[in-house]
């Protein structure tokens, strides 16, 4: 098939898909699980349990606390040790439920069989309800509560469901492996999402470095309303705005959402989770995480319980290499560097990447030579050199005028800069300050 791509900017970081082709290994639960109550965008969930309570796998331990919020379930069975503040990937201590794992007892309502359940007659409202109950959020990393995304706002119509099977970040192979090993379930999940959204057309976008996934998904979807489209390998093809533009040639307006052009985008992992939630009554209690790194003994794709400490995953992948200096939650372009290994895997953790000390430090800072490379790689048509300059001088109103809020924080600019300037650091600061200004303005 002919490959599509997005029209503006983009970079080509080396792919390093070290764990590609390694089949998913299901990890047993850890000894102690720490489950944060905020693993999603929106209001943190409200804790329902107390110290000393016994819980089973799949049991609700914190409930949705607002319109944009969702439920949190226990991913293990055992006794609750503490409801306290623990270090999470935000770099700060946040409220979480710590559970001493005892056995592996699941709620009886959960269907744990491998049978493929096909039932597409559930009405849209019920689908959304089941997804809220199951605590499903976007597993691509943004963790937006999925049941909210399925609700089309007044005055807008949804025409297409787009599935993000792009996985443009180097090193990560979680989505690749789930498309290969759970093809039927993903496909069923897509149909569920289509029904929940009320659309009749769906497109799965997959980058061309996964030809086997393109082939398998195409075969599964043959003859259905779901089509599969191959995409050129270019970062950040997986950004939803870039994906919508590549697949449908529609540009999401500045400050808008994909629904403004009739589209809703979900990650393929979310489709799988939707299938499991709706068809198997299984809440979101685990996910596929790629554990990888050049010095790592066994780069792997693990199916991991939410709340498992990162240290456990690394052990299972062969142990922490001697020369490790950076541990990243996510991929190298947008992932978050972790200050410690005692941090739990959460719903948005797509990968753990270990980087050696030789590659961990930034190069020496040089002055901006105005080479325009950052401008030419920015997929949103912004001018990173200017935004950094304005941010350094705290000229935040001017940053808003220069459309800093359109920035998707993909990191292409900092990646490319020959002077190693921390462009994205300052742009992020500017976005936070401009966000404050906008909120203050709206409050008036």
């Amino acid at each position, binding site marked *: 098939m002919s490959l599509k791509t997005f029209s503006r900017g983009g970079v080509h970081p080396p792919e390093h898909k070290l764990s590609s082709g390694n089949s998913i290994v299901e990890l047993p639960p850890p000894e102690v699980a720490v489950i944060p109550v905020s693993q999603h965008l929106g209001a943190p969930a409200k804790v329902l349990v107390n110290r000393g309570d016994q819980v089973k796998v799949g049991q609700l331990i914190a409930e949705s606390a607002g319109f944009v919020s969702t439920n949190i379930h226990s991913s293990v069975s055992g006794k609750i040790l503490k409801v306290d503040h623990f270090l999470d990937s935000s*770099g*700060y*201590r946040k409220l979480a439920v710590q559970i001493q794992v005892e056995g592996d007892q699941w709620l009886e309502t959960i269907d744990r069989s491998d049978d493929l359940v096909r039932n597409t007659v559930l009405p849209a409202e019920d689908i959304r309800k089941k997804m809220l109950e199951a605590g499903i959020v976007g597993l691509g990393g943004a963790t937006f509560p999925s049941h909210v995304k399925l609700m089309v706002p007044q005055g807008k119509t949804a025409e297409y469901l787009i599935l993000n099977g792009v996985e443009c970040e180097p090193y990560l192979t979680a989505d690749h492996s789930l498309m290969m090993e759970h093809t039927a379930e993903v496909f069923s999940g897509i149909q569920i999402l289509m029904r929940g959204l009320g659309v009749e057309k769906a497109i799965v976008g997959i980058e061309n470095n996964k030809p086997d996934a393109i082939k398998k998904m195409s075969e599964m979807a043959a003859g259905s309303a779901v089509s599969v489209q191959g995409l050129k390998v270019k970062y950040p093809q997986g950004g939803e705005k870039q994906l919508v533009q590549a697949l449908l040639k529609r540009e999401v307006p500045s400050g808008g959402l994909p629904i403004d052009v009739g589209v809703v985008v979900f990650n393929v992992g979310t489709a799988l989770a939707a299938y499991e939630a709706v068809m198997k009554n299984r809440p979101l209690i685990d996910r596929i995480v790629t554990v990888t790194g050049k010095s790592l003994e066994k780069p792997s794709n693990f199916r991991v319980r939410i709340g498992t400490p990162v240290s456990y995953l690394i052990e299972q992948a062969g142990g922490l290499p001697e020369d490790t200096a950076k541990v990243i939650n996510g991929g190298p372009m947008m992932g978050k560097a972790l*200050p*410690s290994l005692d941090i739990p895997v959460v719903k948005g953790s797509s990968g753990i990447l270990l980087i050696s000390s030789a590659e961990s*430090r930034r190069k020496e800072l040089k002055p901006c030579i105005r080479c325009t490379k950052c401008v030419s790689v920015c997929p949103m048509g912004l001018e990173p050199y200017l935004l950094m300059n304005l941010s350094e001088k705290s000229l935040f109103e001017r940053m808003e005028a220069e459309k800093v809020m359109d920035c998707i924080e993909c990191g292409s600019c900092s990646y490319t800069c020959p002077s190693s300037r*921390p462009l994205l*650091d300052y742009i992020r600061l500017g976005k936070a300050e401009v966000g404050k200004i906008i909120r203050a303005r709206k409050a008036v």
Partner: protein
Amino acid sequence: MSQIIIYTIITLVAIGAAAAIILYFVAQKFKVYEDPRIDEVEEVLPAANCGGCGFPGCRNFAETLVKSDSWDDLFCPVGGNEVMANAAAIMGKEAIEQAPKVAVVRCNGTPEFRPRVTEYDGAPTCAIAHSLYSGEGGCPHGCLGLGDCVVVCNFDAIHMDPETGLPVVLDDKCTACGACVDACPRDIIELRKKNKKDRKIFVSCINEEKGAAAKKNCSVACIGCSKCFKVCPYEAITMENNLAFIDSEKCKLCRKCVPECPTSAILELNFPPPRQKEAVEANKTESN
């Protein structure tokens, strides 16, 4: 030759005179009336244009002073009581005296007390490090040591100590304008009452975590044990969110609380060494 010179001089003088006359009339026609007292008040202000008064520049503050009836909320921290008295004299008012203040850095997390457990490699500003994680020392309320407070000071009154990684305020230069207070993303710097001989007693910690969590990162953290609160004879100490706070207006500098603190979180600065007990080792001593 001299003819040319004479003609040149006449022409230039004529142009100059014409320009002067035109400018005079234009200036008169477009003149904006301003209360002449604004100029007078502006004269007595320090002309630092630092914004410490809360207004953009000394001229703007002068305008506000002249136009306002009540000066209750108006004060120039840089000029202090003397300048306010002078300005009040021009306006025929009575200036209310305010107690002078000084900026105090409420963190004592040196590498000795708060070991650095990670290395930060991002852009060297506190704002960015703060948004990324709790910092090299691990304490989410601790000083990040990257100098946003230093950069913003107009009076050269605050510098980073490279050994401790903490900012040091020069009391004689600090005007309590509040710029560093605003710049610190963790609100570690506080404007406290300035005492004679620059003596200070304050809780050098703003950590609101429970005691055990706070101590995990830093050995001189306030653990909220309330021992200081119990011993203060002037009710100057309050406990809130696992943190003790000494009100600088109420504190009489009796120093009873200092030896009580089990983590040495309360610092006494610029005092003679205490007569009773051995000197508390955690005290930071400043050179006068």
